[in-house]
């Protein structure tokens, strides 16, 4: 079934969750899919190894926006180590997509990759600062 007829996707696309800038984020990471112009930026507010708050801003097709929105929902409140484990497949399952062609996987991969980088950036900063908040 095309994602156009999956309510969950269209709902996330039209009413994105956590689409916000977080001013006092302790990690911000943005990336883009140059071949299609999609961009995603993720804001993390981490506290004692847990994602207290998360926001995203971005621009792209319904798939990439819906998966960014869903991803923030899934990540919010979870341990960093757990959030790091979220894969494209998990997102697809949650969104209700059974299969996705090779040319569209990257629309979902972008937010996943961006979240990962935001977390890694946070961890390495924390490390540098002498080991954890």
């Amino acid at each position, binding site marked *: 079934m*095309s*994602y*156009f*007829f999956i309510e969950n996707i269209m709902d996330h696309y039209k009413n994105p969750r956590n689409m916000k800038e977080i001013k006092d984020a302790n990690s911000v990471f943005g990336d883009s899919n140059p*071949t*299609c*112009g999609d961009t995603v930026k993720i804001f993390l507010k981490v506290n004692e190894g847990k994602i207290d708050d998360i926001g995203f801003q971005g*621009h*792209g*097709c*319904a*798939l990439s926006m819906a998966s960014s929105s869903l991803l923030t929902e899934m990540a919010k409140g979870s341990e960093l180590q757990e959030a790091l484990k979220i894969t494209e497949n998990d997102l697809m399952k949650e969104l209700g997509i059974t299969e996705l062609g090779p040319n*569209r996987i990257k*629309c979902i991969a972008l937010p996943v990759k961006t979240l990962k980088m935001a977390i890694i950036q946070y961890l390495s900063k924390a490390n540098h600062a002498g080991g954890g908040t």
Partner: protein
Amino acid sequence: MIEDLNSIRSDFPIFEFNPKLVYMDSAATSQRPKKVIDKVAEVYTQYNSNVHRGIYSMAEKVTEEYEDARKEIAAFLGTSAEELIFTKNTTESLNLVAYMLLPKLKNGVITITELEHHSNILPWRKVASLANAEIKTVAVDQEGKINEADFEKKISGTSVFSFAHVSNVAGTTLNAKKMIRTAKAEGAITVVDGAQAAPHIKLNLHDMGADFYALSGHKMLGPTGIGILYGNKKLLEDLEPPFSGGEMVKEVHAEGQEWNDVPWKFEPGTPNFAGAIGFGEAVKYLEKIGMGDIELYEKKLGRALVEELTKIDGLEYIGPMENRASLLSFKLRGYHPHDIAAFLDTRSIAVRSGFHCAQPLHEKFGFFDGSARASLYFYNNMEEIESLARALKELVKL
């Protein structure tokens, strides 16, 4: 006149396999008639052996078929056979000519236009960097037409002028003959990217006067992996082959070698002979339908495309309103081009989304997310354009 479209469509097995398919991505690659598909299978089944030099019967037969295809295509393009080099696609043709001209480019000027496909930008950037040459880009106006004043200015002092005969995004058709005349008066060697022209326009390359002309078989009913670089015979004889190997030499000794005659000196290695023979068959098929008729019919399609689609609220397109190729690159306010294509797919309509390998052109027109592109061929019809418009209206209401 193309009237009996049903009979034409039934020549293409894909529409039998998938009767609901509305295929509007012919600028990326065309569909292929049964005759072409069967011809390729015939080569493999009846006289498959390597071309040239073999003197047993099958090798003679395949060589004859291969060289006959070259003659067929030469007649179709208004050139002579020894001026046609078989390549794998337009992109290889353009890289080949760029490297051929490299020795003439030292500190020179290469001029292209803002309409170019990446395949007519990047090879020139490469040889420009090797030869320390400069690249100038002729601007287009808001309708995607050549800015004449800018052309006059930039063409002066140019060593090589290379341009798309028909733009794969804007649908503009350039006045090739006139621009070539101007460029030649300036002493430039002229190269034409004909990937989007050759499938749709009756060509006569000798009359046009281009020194080089590149095209792809797969965009004009032929098999994949076969293209053409036409080159003026005199130039081909003078220039050195940048790529070499088997079949393109008369003699090779421990020291030195002697190149084969043109065009073979530019065809190293075993060619895609089944592809070339299939391409010859494609050209025969096009001749039978008639390129003049195809041109007329597609003008109608192009006009209808603009008329129907511009009725849709929030739709913007790139290129001229009139006299356009039968393709339209557009965006729709509130919808990413990928979503447009994905939605149309649910209605069995195949259009492409993205930058169509012409990102600078999209950026120029502020299409930063790319566009959706419907590109038609003579096997499309008015009803399909209506289906497309209907589906887009549905999307807007979703």
